[in-house]
């Protein structure tokens, strides 16, 4: 991995100013978090050490744990895999790291991004496990889209992916799963949960660790890391990542929230951290009905309903009624749907992020 060659500095670049951390080298970027102008070397140090601090302060890991890194081949998970293996070595975390990928069966998208993950496996020396929708559920996303079209496909994909990651993590016998969700993603999810009135998710989406009650806890070491810095880091380090939009996912609503956040960031970069802070500080009033957690009667996965969402969707697919479980159609859970409208708090189907690993 050769780092970017140093090209000739621009005369008018920063008016001869120097990096405000080392005071020696020419700055290469402006940090959105602090507005500091820093050089490439100092950027690597502060970027990595801030993530280290987040890991230590939040006690994300214990020595000897086995950790799966949810790896899509995209920028966030590629940088996460690189930084996690660096920090594990540098600070002796004593972790066994693995890459875990989900093959949704999307030709021309996931097959290509999986090639990136396979290269990462070699580049970072991390063992890779791939679990596929075809093996787990008997359907690829290509096959599902052929039946249901392009309307609700992201629902299937999101619900299936969450379980697939848990199943893959169980196969790897890991203690935790880390995902590459960054500060921008979390701010966006805070906004979306407010826009949807989804209080259950709003209170959870800013947690750095979730699912401690479930089979495998998940955590987000990039919770405070700006997307701009992740992309800059990947660029300067010449990390090998894949960047193509999923061919099936326009997800317009999330797209608007994303664009709004990016517009805010341009005016005031701190807005991203402030939105996360707002999400963290919201308190749920005691009169708000929260969903109860149970297990799916069919497959045993955690569910607040009789059947988990994946089983409802799968049952519909297999019975030739693919609309089952989408929106308000009748299914095995419909008797309980009347009194708990948004009851499936953690795994609500309308709020899935497409193209990335979900919350």
């Amino acid at each position, binding site marked *: 991995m050769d780092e970017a060659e140093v090209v*000739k500095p*621009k005369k008018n670049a*920063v008016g001869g100013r120097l990096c405000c951390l080392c005071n020696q080298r020419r700055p290469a970027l402006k940090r959105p978090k602090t507005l500091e102008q820093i050089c490439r070397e100092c950027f690597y140090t502060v970027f990595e050490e801030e993530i280290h601090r987040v890991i230590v302060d939040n006690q994300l890991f214990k020595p000897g744990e086995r950790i799966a890194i949810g790896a*899509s*081949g995209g*920028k966030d998970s590629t940088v996460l895999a690189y930084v996690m293996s660096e920090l594990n070595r540098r600070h002796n975390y004593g972790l066994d790291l693995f890459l875990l990928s989900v093959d949704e069966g999307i030709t021309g998208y996931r097959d290509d991004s999986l090639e990136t993950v396979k290269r990462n496996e070699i580049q970072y020396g991390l063992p890779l496990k791939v679990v596929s929708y075809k093996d787990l559920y008997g359907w690829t996303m290509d096959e599902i889209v052929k039946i249901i079209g392009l309307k609700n496909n992201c629902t299937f994909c999101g619900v299936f992916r969450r379980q697939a990651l848990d199943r893959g993590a169980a196969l790897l016998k890991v203690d935790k799963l880390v995902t590459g969700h960054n500060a921008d993603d979390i701010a966006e999810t805070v906004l979306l949960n407010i826009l949807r009135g989804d209080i259950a998710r709003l209170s959870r989406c800013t947690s750095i660790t979730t699912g401690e009650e479930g089979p495998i806890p998940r955590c987000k070491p990039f919770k405070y890391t700006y*997307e701009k810095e992740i992309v800059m880091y990947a*660029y*300067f380090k010449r990390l090998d990542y894949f960047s193509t939009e999923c061919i099936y996912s326009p997800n317009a609503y999330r797209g608007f929230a994303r664009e709004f956040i990016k517009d805010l960031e341009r005016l005031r970069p701190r807005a991203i951290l402030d939105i996360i802070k707002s999400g963290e500080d919201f308190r749920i009033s005691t009169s708000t009905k929260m969903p109860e957690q149970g297990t799916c009667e069919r497959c045993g996965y955690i569910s607040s309903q009789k059947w988990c969402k994946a089983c409802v969707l799968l049952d519909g697919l297999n019975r030739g009624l693919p609309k089952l479980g989408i929106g308000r159609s009748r299914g095995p859970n419909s008797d309980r749907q009347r009194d708990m409208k948004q009851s499936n708090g953690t795994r609500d189907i309308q709020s899935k992020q497409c193209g990335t690993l979900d919350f």
Partner: protein
Amino acid sequence: MQLTLEFGGGLELLCESVKIHNVNVDPAEDGGDKLTMKSLLAWVRTNLIKERPEMFMKGDSVRPGVLVLVNDCDWELSGQLDTTLEEKDVVVFISTLHGG
């Protein structure tokens, strides 16, 4: 003026999947031998972007979420649209908006 333009993070898809473009841009439009990023962006939009220009630009600047580096230096340090370019400069555009 000879420039090297590089598109990444998915933006290459807007210019026929070609990542690196060696181009010759006439700075005369700016009334002199200087070319600003503002006029380069207008030139790129007309000459290189073949589809969905709204993924690349918003108003007369890049769309928020698109990073710009001039000679491997964040353009936020050199005055963004007012950055002046010189012969053989390398300008990189990277979208942060694709995938995860």
